């Protein structure tokens, strides 16, 4: 497949994506012309073919290797499952203004929400604290169990929006980390 096609930048159907998985960045170029896909991953040509079985289920062929990839949105995160392995994925269009990355931070302020109804029994950080990815931000109690809610990324606690003892519903914003 390599070398048999051009990479038109203005005609046809051309997509450019920056994909981040596990801290690693991939640059993906996709082009569709004459009923075929062309793909370049980090500058290397890859033969691909794909159809959506449904909006969240992709049947992907890479060469002749076949994969079913499922997509899942959990709060603000995008997860892709390749077989039984789950990847947290960020996809950005490097050419769009909205998606332009800021130095050291892929996404801007991130809301940390309660995963289920419960009560905030403890706050572990204050406004202005620096947190690492995975650091506990609050403890929410529900169904007689305590659940530590973690920051999904490294950053600064912009604002805490609940107080200790507050009752929360699923989806309520507990804090914002930037």
């Amino acid at each position, binding site marked *: 497949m390599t070398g048999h096609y051009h990479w038109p930048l*203005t*005609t*046809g*159907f*051309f*997509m450019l*994506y920056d*994909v981040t*998985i*596990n801290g690693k960045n991939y640059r*993906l170029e*996709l082009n*569709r012309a004459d009923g075929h896909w062309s*793909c370049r*991953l980090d500058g290397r040509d*890859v033969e*691909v073919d*794909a*159809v*959506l079985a*449904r*909006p*969240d289920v*992709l049947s*992907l062929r*890479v060469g002749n290797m076949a*994969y079913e*990839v*499922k*997509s*899942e*949105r*959990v709060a*603000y995160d*995008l997860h*892709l*499952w*390749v*077989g*039984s*392995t789950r*990847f947290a*994925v*960020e*996809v*950005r*269009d490097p*050419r*769009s203004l*909205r*998606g332009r990355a800021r130095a050291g931070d892929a*996404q801007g302020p991130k809301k940390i929400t309660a*995963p*289920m*109804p419960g009560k905030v029994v403890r706050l572990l950080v204050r406004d202005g604290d620096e947190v690492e990815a995975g650091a506990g931000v609050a403890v929410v109690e*529900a*169904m007689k*169990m305590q*659940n530590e809610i973690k920051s999904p990324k490294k950053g600064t606690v912009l604002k805490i929006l609940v107080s200790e003892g507050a009752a929360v519903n*699923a989806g309520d914003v507990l804090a914002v980390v930037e």
Partner: protein
Amino acid sequence: MFKKILIANRGEIAVRVLRACHEMGIAAVVVYSDVDRAALHVRKADEAYPIGAAAASESYLNIPKILDVAKRAGVDAIHPGYGFLSENSKFAQACADAGVKFIGPTAAAMEAMGSKTHARQAMEKAGVPFVPGTSRGVESFAEAEKIAAQLGYPVMLKAAAGGGGKGMRLVHTLDQLKPSLEAARSEAERSFSDSEVYIEKAIVNPRHIEVQVLADEHGNRVYLGERECSLQRRHQKVLEEAPSPIVDAGMRRRMGEVAVRVAQTANYTNAGTVEFLVDQEKKFYFLEMNTRLQVEHPVTELISGLDLVHLQISIAAGEKLPFKQDDVNIRGHAIECRIYAEDPDNNYFPSPGKIALLQEPSGPGIRIDSGMYEGWTVPIDYDPLLAKLIGYGADRELAIARLTRALNEYFVGGIKTNISLFRRILQDEDFRAAKLDTGFLDRMLQRPDDKPTDSKAEKVAAIAAGMFAALGSTAAAASERATGSGSGTTGNAESNWKPASRREALH
């Protein structure tokens, strides 16, 4: 035969009982709480009655409300499922008083087995082997000290009214005995309003093996083989199999005959299970009897070819068991996985929410008993058991292979489930060699689950991420063109970015 049965339960077991009713030409009446209106058991029922707020005490545990529905619907019988009111002797009696047949044992039989100390006393009289220890609660620390010395450490302190691992303490040495006794008593008081605690010899690395019994109301009793339920986390079963890999035909017969004797002692009728602990020398000891249909009944159904819920209904309708002990044959091997809405990466914390995508396995040797469906929102208010996945084959190796294959096909998107736990268990060397005991799962979970990073899969994920975005945006653009709506775009590249960037704003 009954014309109408009320199912006093919810979730997968309500669906399973409902199916048996339909197979027998019986109308199925269900009840539902406010959060269960869209539940699968309501969708599949013939009649459905609302019974109030989500809290179980207001709904599924509310005896007056349930009996009121039974009366209004004109049912002949009530099937209690498992959990909820299934082992509540007051409920069994209330049904009898209301002239509605309770599909299960009598209140008296339930009570005989409900208190663990009373059950032990009865077993003592019946000459049934049980774990050495006291058959009465200990009155004082001095008494406990003396008994523990006689039994030899380690000893297990247990709540007489207990269950679910509450009020239990394993004591290794004398100096642990006093604080453990106090802790067990107060936990028992809090959980069961009964601080009675008794002592058993603690068996080292026991296996939990239970026997299914069935008794009609004409004095016929049979055993249907055993189930191995040693894979437990915090005393909750997670995976069960039948037959037990260590039980041969002779042991099966001996355990089965003891189980039938236990049922006889309690004047037991309908389906029940006698639990044993088995030590490393294959000596078995009566632990307790469960006076209901159990969660893991499918594995027995698959190896015996019998339908236990059909049989429960027939027995309750006064029919004789249609077979004798000699007619019972077990064949093949079945393994069940309990699929819970739990997050394995977060200490198995319950994970309610909306099921965005459900792909269920099927094919040879696969059975699924499920209460969930795609688009359903798992409520927070109840036990998070979603479904049971059972693999069956001619032998244990094939059952494992089928189950492994099925687990790879099983996908529940939008919530967390413990499906990954079973993949890990089935690959475990000791599991495959059937080296099981009740400590197995705790030991396995303490070992880190080191999955090597799969860089190839990661590249596939990167490509897929782009493809989802690209194909998603083409679909969006195509539908915009088709409906003539949106910004009146043509197929140029610029306009294809709009849906893509809209989607990215959600990232």
